[in-house]
Each structure stands twice: as structure tokens, then as C-alpha cells.
């Protein structure tokens, strides 16, 4: 809420992209780990990630945004079978 006394009518936030401020990394039970030696930068993981948590720069898979990654494992599951560069590991408590 921008103004504590008069919250915006209907909960409309007068800015865009505010979901980024809501971190969901704490929801994780398993975390994705990438082996850059194996990765072919096909970026299928970037396409399928439901939370935009794959960091890609200049056509290369760099890593994960662990503030937002919920650990759903889609990236690991969709990483090509012959490559399997992404694997899921149990999140340490």
C-alpha cells in the first residue's frame, strides 16, 4: 500500500510488474542445480519456467533467480533427456 491512510480503491496498484517484489523462494522443497559443462543453452528451461526464475543473458543460461524459484522442477524435467544439465536437489533446511 502506497499510502497507509487511503489504500488504492479496489486494490489497484498504480505500478506494473509488482509480482517481482513478492518473493517465493521460501516455498522451495527442492532446488534446481545446473551443470554448465553439460548445458547446451537451448533455453527450454527459460521458456517453461512459470516464474521467470531462469536467468538468461545473451542467449546463455546463467543460473536461477532463487528469490523467486519455487522449486517446481519443470526446468529439470524439460531439460533434454540426452543433456540433463539441470537436476533437483533437496533444499537444506
Amino acid at each position, binding site marked *: 500500500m502506497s499510502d497507509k491512510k487511503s489504500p488504492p480503491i479496489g*486494490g489497484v496498484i498504480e505500478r506494473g510488474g509488482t509480482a517481482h517484489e513478492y518473493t517465493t523462494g521460501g516455498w522451495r522443497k527442492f532446488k534446481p542445480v545446473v551443470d554448465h559443462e553439460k548445458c547446451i543453452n537451448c533455453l527450454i528451461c527459460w521458456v517453461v519456467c512459470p516464474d521467470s526464475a531462469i536467468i538468461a543473458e545473451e542467449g546463455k543460461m546463467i543460473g536461477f533467480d532463487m528469490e523467486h524459484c519455487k522449486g517446481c522442477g519443470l526446468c529439470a524435467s524439460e531439460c533434454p533427456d540426452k543433456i540433463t544439465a539441470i537436476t533437483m536437489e533437496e533444499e537444506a533446511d
Partner: protein
Amino acid sequence: MAIARNKREQMGLTGNSAVAMAMKQVNPDVFPAYPITPSTTVVEEFSSYVADGAVDTEFIAVESEHSAMSACVGAAAAGARVMTATSSQGLALMWEVLYIASGLRLPIVLCDGNRALSSPINIHCDHSDTMGARDSGWIHLYSETVQEAYDNIFQAVRIAEHPDVMLPVMVCLDGFITTHAIENVTPIGDEEAQEFVGEYKAKNSLLDTDNPVTVGAMALQEPYMVFKYQQSEAIKKAKDVVIEVGKEFEEKFGREYGLFESYRLEDAEVAVVILSSAAGTTKVAVDELRARGKKVGLLRPRLFRPLPHAEIAEALKGLKVVACLDRTDSMSGFGGPLFNDVRSVLYEVENRPLIFGRIFGLGGRDYQVKDALAVFEELLSTLETGKVDELIKYITFDPEAPLSVDGSGC
């Protein structure tokens, strides 16, 4: 209903045609609707206006009423003036999204032809559809006549878009009895209509990419209640706006609209509280009994949500006995919603009147002058004995022989 101050041309219109015509005169930006059964011909007629180029409206034919209301929400969030129409099961299918429309404070106007909900399947007049949506945060206006339904459309636009309100409004008229019956209507001119509703400028638009907004954000434990409080305060303010807009409408067009209609209530000892078209039938009974010297009257709520509780209490406080007639049963085992509301309203009244609830007209079952007279007879005998015999009861109906009711058939 007051007679028009200025001599204007009259037209014979069904409720649906009159509502469609009012919507044409408003010329909304977007009209999403599911155009087949159980919708009314409002949608069919409005889509003809669109096809004929009589309006600038974007008509969206969707695959269900859930989608219709979702499209209304999307278009309204984009800053459009939005209208739709439905009935019965159609409104039931909109349920989930009705709450989203009011929670997002989108001034959508919906016209509902009040009809029964299944099961059993029935297409006739009944208030179960909108009464089920009475807690959805929408403002509810109930119309007695075709003229009132027509006039309510223009007022609904102004009420919904008022900066103190910003809430959706449903205009209700009785299925078949009002939607399909032809009555004399005195329409207002196209230019007058445009001048009355004015131009709608939404504060935010989803399509304004230079000023992006987030609509429908999450609000958990702490903020959720803040927004609900804000919404609750807004619907309370709607009452004054309904009065203000009604006054302006009367000044311009000569027809008077308030929170409710009081009919021969000033010196009445007993009265019926009833919504919509059945009030017309009841008024005939009031006149007959008044001619016989009985002090009887009627109160017909027009604004049902928000409930003008203080005003209704003030209007009913001098009475001895009140009967509330509901065209729906809320299946609580304790009568209909109007009965429960009015009974609760009267709790604060000193020397409060006795009250009983009667359920009538479900699924279009006939309610005639003789049935209204029977209710008044009950009221008058309660006045004599000072004791309510039966708190809640179905009328025009014999539970011992439910399929062979006098004249109303089955």
C-alpha cells in the same frame, strides 16, 4: 408513478425492449454477453443495435455467463463503460466473477430479468437469482414497471460511476411479467440521455502502457480486510448517491425515484412490504381496502443493496403489523431475505410492529389481487388479536393439497 412533467411521446414497449433501448441510448463501450437461453431478448435486441451501427459498442459474444462477466471485468479494468444482461441460471453462472467485479470496484451495469433457478427447471418469474447474489457487493435496484426498469438503467450508470461509489449495479425487473409485457413508456431523448449519463473517464486503464497498473493483486491477512472495509463504506455511501441521482432524474424528466416507494402508508396501521411488479397488484388491493375504510398501505423497496435500514425503519415505525412478501425462499428454514432484513430493521424501533413473512409467486405462480387481499385480511386479524398466528408461510398454496390450488393450477 408520476406523470411526465413535459408532454413526451409514449411508446408501447416490453421490459426487455425498453431496457435494450436505454442501453442503446447510453451507448456503452463494451457489451459482453452470452446471447442464448437463459438470457433475455435484451441481448438480442442490443446486438441488433450493434449490427445496425446504432451504437459504437464492442459486442463480445462469449461462451458462457462466467466468461461474460469476466469480459465485463476485463473491459471495465481497461477503463470502458460496460453493460451486460442476463437472467436466472445465467446470473448463477456469473457468481464467482460478480464478487471480483465489486471487489475491484468496477462500475459495471447488469440488467437481470428475475427468473427461477433450477431445479426443477422453470423459466418464470422468481427472485431467487438476484437474491442469491445479494451479498456479492453489487448495488441492487428492483423495478416495478417497464418505465422504471428503463429509467433505472440511466440512473444505474450514474450511481455505479460516482467517485464515492465505484461499484457495479444490477437493475432487476420481473421475468415475463415485466420483461415480456408491453407497457406504455415515455422515453427520454438520445441527447438528453447522453447528457444525463455524461462521459466516463476511468481513473486507470489496463491499456495505458505509459502508466501501468496492477489489477487484481493479492491482499492477504492484513490488507484484505482493509479493502473489504473500504468496499463496505462505499456501498453505504451508495444510498445517498441513489437519492441524489434520483432527484436529478426527477428534475430533468419528471419521474420521481427514491430508496423505496411508500403507498398510502402515512396513517396506515398495517402494511405489506414487497418488491417489483407484485407491488402493483398489491396496490390495487390497498385501494380496495382503503375504499372500505381500512388503514392499509404498502412499502416497495427500490434500493435493496445497500439496505436503507434507517429509512425503512422510519417509514414503518408507526405501523402495528407488517407482512413481508418474498418471491424466493432463502432455504434457511426462516423465511425469505426481505422478511429477514425488514424484521431485523424493525428490531431497533420502539413499540415495533408485529411482523410475519409470506412466500409467494415462486417459479411464476400467480399472485392476484385476491391473494394480496388475503394477506391484508391476515394483517387485519393480527391487528385485532395482537398476535402473529404463523410467522412464516407459503401462500396461494395449500400444503394439504399442493397440486390443486384454487385457480392458480399447476
